[in-house]
């Protein structure tokens, strides 16, 4: 009996390893080994064009510290985050609360607001690029027909970053609305009814009941939005970059350049894999910190 028991357990274990063998192999070869390799490459002067790839220690990181374009990309990326995330959260919550409080067409509104999220970022970036087009784009045509001055939009250094951010928020909003709606539905209606009977106004119910109970959802979306905006790439490549191969990415004059676009241009235009890898290591560190903050905040649950 005892030996049979053992062999059953052993058989279960064998099944377990069989189930995990291929996935585990995948994660080791396609995720963990390349991640370690990125650290290694970041410590070398890794020019694809030259045979010698000497170990240079922290030199790539020192170079980054003195590279004004890196800092430009870092500040731009920070701007993308601090502008897009609050907008996504506030607009997402407002639209979700509005949809929840109307009695009709809820499904219709939810669908319409969600459409941009499912469409190809490349395709919609080109649509917005066309709408923002300085000479003859629809926005400037509307401005001119109203007797207002035409704007530079994507073609000027002052507005381009904000114009890109608008597209980011426009496309992400539907996701925020859907997740907020799911969060709102989980709040037991009796809390709100009880507060209303107590004489609380709509604003007070929202401020002191809805928002605190939505806290886990808000944190989740804030972190998700932050990580997504830290990785912004596709919109910039398609909205503010010249033709491919011309080296003019994140223009005009680097005003929309993000960290990931800079990584891409260093690695695949300038072939400086070592320097590009060093920037990815920094990006990894930033995302790690954001994730750890999320874990810390989320483990502190609100109880009612």
């Amino acid at each position, binding site marked *: 009996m005892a030996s049979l028991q053992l062999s059953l357990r052993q058989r279960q274990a064998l099944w377990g390893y069989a189930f995990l063998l291929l996935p585990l192999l995948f994660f080791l070869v*396609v995720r963990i080994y390349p991640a370690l390799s990125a650290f290694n490459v970041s410590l070398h002067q890794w020019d694809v064009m030259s045979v010698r790839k000497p170990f240079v220690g922290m030199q790539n990181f020192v170079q980054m510290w003195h590279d004004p374009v890196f800092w430009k990309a870092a500040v731009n990326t920070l701007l993308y985050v601090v502008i897009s995330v609050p907008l996504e959260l506030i607009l997402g919550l407002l639209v979700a609360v509005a949809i929840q409080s109307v009695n009709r067409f809820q499904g219709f*509104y939810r669908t319409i607001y969600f*459409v941009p999220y*499912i*469409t190809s970022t490349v395709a919609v970036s080109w649509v917005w690029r066309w709408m923002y087009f300085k000479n003859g784009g629809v926005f400037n045509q509307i401005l001119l027909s109203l007797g207002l001055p035409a704007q530079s939009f994507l073609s000027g250094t002052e507005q381009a970053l904000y114009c890109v951010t608008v597209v980011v928020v426009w496309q992400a909003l539907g996701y925020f609305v859907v997740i907020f709606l799911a969060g709102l539905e989980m709040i037991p209606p009796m809390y709100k009814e009880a507060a209303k009977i107590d004489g609380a106004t709509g604003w007070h119910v929202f401020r002191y009941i809805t928002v605190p109970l939505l806290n886990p959802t808000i944190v989740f979306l804030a972190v998700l939005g932050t990580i997504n905006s830290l990785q912004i790439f596709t919109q910039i490549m398609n909205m503010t970059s010249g033709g491919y191969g011309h080296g003019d990415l994140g223009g005009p004059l680097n005003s929309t350049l993000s960290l990931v676009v800079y990584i891409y241009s260093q690695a695949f235009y300038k072939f400086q894999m070592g320097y590009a890898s060093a920037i990815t290591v920094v990006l*990894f560190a930033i995302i790690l910190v954001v994730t750890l903050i999320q874990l810390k905040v989320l483990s502190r649950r609100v109880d009612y």
Partner: protein
Amino acid sequence: MQEPAIQTGTLENLPRSSTSPPTRDVRAAALHLLLLAGAVLMIFPFLWMLATSFKQGAEVFNISLIPRQPTWANYQTLLESTNYLRWYLNSAIVAIITTASEAFFDSMAGYGLAKIKFPGRGLILILILSTLMIPTEMLIIPWYMMFTKAGWVDTYWGIMLPGLVSAFGVFLMNQFMQGIPDDLLDAARIDGLNEFGVWWHVALHQVKPALAALCILVFLGNWNAFLWPVIVIESSAMRTLPVGIALFSGEAGPEWQLIMAAASLAVIPVVAVFAFFQKQIVQGIALTGMK
């Protein structure tokens, strides 16, 4: 939550806080108006895209939303001068195979970690979940080096390999598999099913909604993917739809009507499919977001 109830929970407060029917109607109308205005802003880019794609010549720069002389010429030019249909096929191949692969491997690993007891499974789970923190940007350079050495650049295998299994998918499946009652699985085992059969015939049916949601997310993600494909694809024949549109549009210069035709062909079928399954898709995405 109880304190205010003690302080102000009196009946006199009731009439004051409940709004009378006329004001409620006005408020509902105002809300509908605001939501509609927002909906127009969400949809307008798509209308403008379609409008431009049917225009030609000087009319492209006309502000009207309805073309005076709508024409299919831009679509014709696009299909004749590019590999557009090939890009469509490539995107479909990549998205379908990666979705099938993730559905298979993510659920298999999720089941193994949730429902089979074996030494080291906690360690394996931590190892897989820890890869969630690695951003793709960090991996593309090593991938490119590895794939160049292996001769996988500019192949389907090269485009798809990084997406064949995902830590998020394993995590999601693991979460939902844990919710399956053990009794159910044991009953299947007693009926003579081996572990593969238990997973395939019993467990998968129990997590169907989550599995469907995962498939939708993976399909959309791969259908729209850009960062890795734009790096690993070199020839026009291998381009996926986003890469094809991006490179074509970069070269098409000011031919906005052609670019909008290319965008429309990419966007409209996806929106049509979404309109058909919108309830399942939205609920699925909400489901995966809350876990």
